[in-house]
Structures are given as structure tokens and as C-alpha cells.
């Protein structure tokens, strides 16, 4: 049912774990719905230097999480913001129709993480 890429990112997820010194954190979803992603980013000179994630969810949700951390590393915040859920899904070789909503999880968590970083910057807590 899943593509080779989805299975690879699910079985060997990249960038797993917490990031205690993250510059931005985005949480999307909730456990009642069956999936929740927490995305941590480290930002330097407007570029995403590092990203990590923790996800509760199905195979697709975990693969999407892993893939998006790979896609955003090294990107400027603007470039990362422009990543669409369709791009995440297509990088994974597609998702089954009933699992397409899982790609929202990654894109939405990413936007929240970047917003969180910018808010922190604006309020000067850094």
C-alpha cells in the first residue's frame, strides 16, 4: 500500500528526537485524531541549520515527518515556508488517497515552527 520511499522513511526515519535548544518548535495534530507531530528547528542566518521531529501516528505520518526534516535542512526560512504538502507527498513517491491528509501534518507543523521562531525573534527572547 505504501511506496518504497514511504517505507524507507518509516522504517529508517531521519532526524528523530527532541531538540532541547531549538530555535523554533511547531506542534500539529492531536492524539485523539491519531496523529501529532512536533517539529524542532535550529536557525542560523535565516537558514534552517538542523531539524528534528517526534511523531505519534501511522506509517505515513512518520514518513512525512522524516521527509520534511530532510527537505528543510539548509533552506532559508522563505524557501522552507514555500514547501507545499504536495511536494512532501511527491518526494515520498506519493501517498495513498486516504493518507493524503498526513502530508498536511508536516507542512503545518513546519509553518508553526517557523512562526514560533519569528515570534521569538520579534519578542527578543533570544
Amino acid at each position: 500500500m505504501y511506496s518504497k520511499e514511504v517505507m524507507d522513511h518509516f522504517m529508517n526515519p531521519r532526524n528523530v528526537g527532541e531538540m532541547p535548544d531549538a530555535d523554533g518548535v511547531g506542534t500539529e495534530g492531536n492524539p485523539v485524531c491519531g496523529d501529532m507531530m512536533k517539529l524542532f528547528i535550529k536557525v542560523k542566518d535565516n537558514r534552517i541549520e538542523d531539524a528534528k521531529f517526534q511523531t505519534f501516528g501511522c506509517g505515513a505520518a512518520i514518513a512525512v515527518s522524516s521527509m520534511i526534516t530532510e527537505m528543510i535542512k539548509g533552506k532559508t526560512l522563505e524557501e522552507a515556508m514555500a514547501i507545499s504538502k504536495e511536494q512532501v507527498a511527491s518526494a515520498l513517491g506519493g501517498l495513498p488517497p486516504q493518507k493524503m491528509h498526513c502530508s498536511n501534518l508536516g507542512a503545518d507543523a513546519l509553518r508553526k515552527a517557523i512562526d514560533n521562531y519569528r515570534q521569538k525573534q520579534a519578542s527578543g527572547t533570544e
Partner: protein
Amino acid sequence: MECYFDHVATTPLRPEVLNAMMPYFREEFGNPLSIYPLGTTAREAVESAREQVAALINAKNAEIIFTSSGAEANNFALRGIAFARQHEGKHIIVTRMEHHSILNSARFLEKMGFTATYLPPDKYGLIDPEAVKKAIIDETILISVIDASPEVGTIEPIREIAAIARERNITLHTDAVASVGNIPVDVKELGVDLLSMSAHQFNGPKGAGALYLREGQRIIPLIFGGIQEGGRRAGTENVSAIVGMGRAAEISKAELPLRVENIRQLRDRLIKDIMKIEDVHFTGHPEKRLPGHASFCVEYIEGEGMLLMLAAKGIYVASGSACTSKALKSSPVLLSMGIPTHVAHGSVVFTLGADNTEEQIEYALEEFPRIIKRLRELSPFAKGWGDMEEGGTCIPKK
């Protein structure tokens, strides 16, 4: 190592069963209604299968109606009795433990002007006979209660419910798809009027089921047409599948006592060790359950992930989690037992069969804890649900 632990999904066809079926695909291809020898052979094969199936559940031959599946038998029972007795009343009672083929039939009957009561189970998945008694009104004509749950393994108190139904002259049906062939089932002892079963649940072929209909019980057919199955179920018989069902029933009857004991021992070993893992909940009733059934909810992770990782190790199980269902909805059975939605997402169901071995159980017990650990490492809830405990409701996003 390959370990098939999903015997509620289906079971492997026994080689003896396939051998019994083979002649009826080619040489003995006759229509049982034909009067020349080819027809007679086919008819005799169907009748002998009927005898074998009847013997498995202690019924009379004439009380067995072959169907295409357990789902058809369930549809037939609900609609057939509801329409046969509608002049006496239009209320039916079913439970929240039922399979979709019962629940959706009940919903259909509601659209046809019937009313239905859906009884909730307790936390073990048990239906209280007293609750059935209380739900009965003057218009109640039919009660349908599942014999054993494929999702949580719980075996319902059918005999007690049958006594209540009989007293009030209400027809009682039980969906015994998960139990027939896996535990001893005796229709006389249970006291039911109708009972559904399915061949592929006990090493028979797919596409063969049966409805037990107590002698003297009137029913309206689901499929109208010719005189097959005493005019109660039209359509040329699926002879080879019926023959296979008969042979599988015969084997089950002979092997059942020993098989039940072996499977139960393997299952108990599995449950004992899995329950040592932290934050794993056992689902269903601890004693009143199918011998091969072990079901759990593993907290902080989602069922599909477990299924995929187990499958990568050659271990095949099921889950009642939302993400593994096409409808993306958590098992209504688990929710009706009071299991919170976020915990129900971690549902995992092992169902053992005659083909499983101790080595397979040991292998699964080595791999499964590792998989849980791995998935929990990925989860933001590895250290608990935190303030997510309350959960709330899920509003699906577009």
C-alpha cells in the same frame, strides 16, 4: 520467520479441504438440480457437506442454509426475521459489539421503519443479559448478539440471553463467525434460533458461509429465485466451496478439543509476556474469550506503525486503530467499551490458529517489545500523554 497471527482476518485452507473441493471444479461440475448422474453427484456432495456442518454445531441437516459468506448470513438473519415478523412488532435489539454486517443491516431496517436499540457492553466487552431484558418492549421481535468478538475476543452470555428471548417469544440470532470452528458451539445448548458462520474462519474456503435456522422458524429470503436451499436462498450452489466448508467443519469437530488447548497455551504465554511491557492494556475479558485471541492497546503509539514494523519482521497481526481502517475511524467496539480514543489508536490484535508454534510465539515476543520501544522513541508522548490526556474531540481537517 513468518508468523501468521491474524486468524480472525482469515485462516489458511487445509490441504485436505482443497483435495475434497478439487473434483467439483472440473469432473463433477454438475448442477445439483439436474436429474442426471452429474447433477445427482453434485447434490449428494452438497447434502453431505450440510450434514458435516450441521454436526459441527449440533443442528439438523435441514436447519443449515448455505450462503456466500458470514456477512450474507448476518444480513439474511436480520432482514429475513425482521420482515417475517414485522406484523408482530417493529423493534429490534442489537449490541455495540456487532460486526458491520449486523450494524449496517440494523441501520437499514431503521430506514425501513423499524426501530433499533444498540446495547453498550461493559469494559470487558460483555453484554449484560439484564440490560437485554430491560431493552425489550412489546414490539421487540428480534435480538441479535454476537457470540464472540473478533476484535477483543470476548465470548457473550448467549445462553442467558436466549432464555430471556424465549420467555418473551422473541427470535434470537447470534453472529458466531468468529467462534464456530474455533470453540465448541452447540445451537441446542445455546438455545438460539439463528446462527451465522463462515468457512474461511476455520480453515475452509472463502465464499462459503451458512445460516443455522431453527426448525419451524419462518424467514423471508434475501435472494429470491429458484428452489435451492429449500427456497430460502436462491442461486446455483457454489458446490466446491460448500464441499470445502463441510470438510473443514468435519476436521474442526474432530480436532477441536486438542487444538483449543494448544492454542490457549500459546496465547497465554503471549499475553503474559506482552503484559510485562509498560503501559500496555489488555482488552476484552480475561477468561471469557476465544482461545487464540490476544488483544491489547499500547499507549503512546499508533497501531498501523506496529503492524508495519511487525510485518517487516514477518509477523502479521491486526489492529482496530483508525489509521489501519479505510474509514479512518477507531474501532467502535473499543470506544464502546470505554477505551479513550487516543489509547484505542494503539490497538493491536494477535489471533492464533492451529498452524502456530511455540517458536513463532518466542520470535514475536523477542521482536514486539523492540518495536514498541522503537516507536515510542519516535513519539512525542514517550514520557506520557501529559496535558493531552483529556484528549477532547477530533475535528477532521479538510
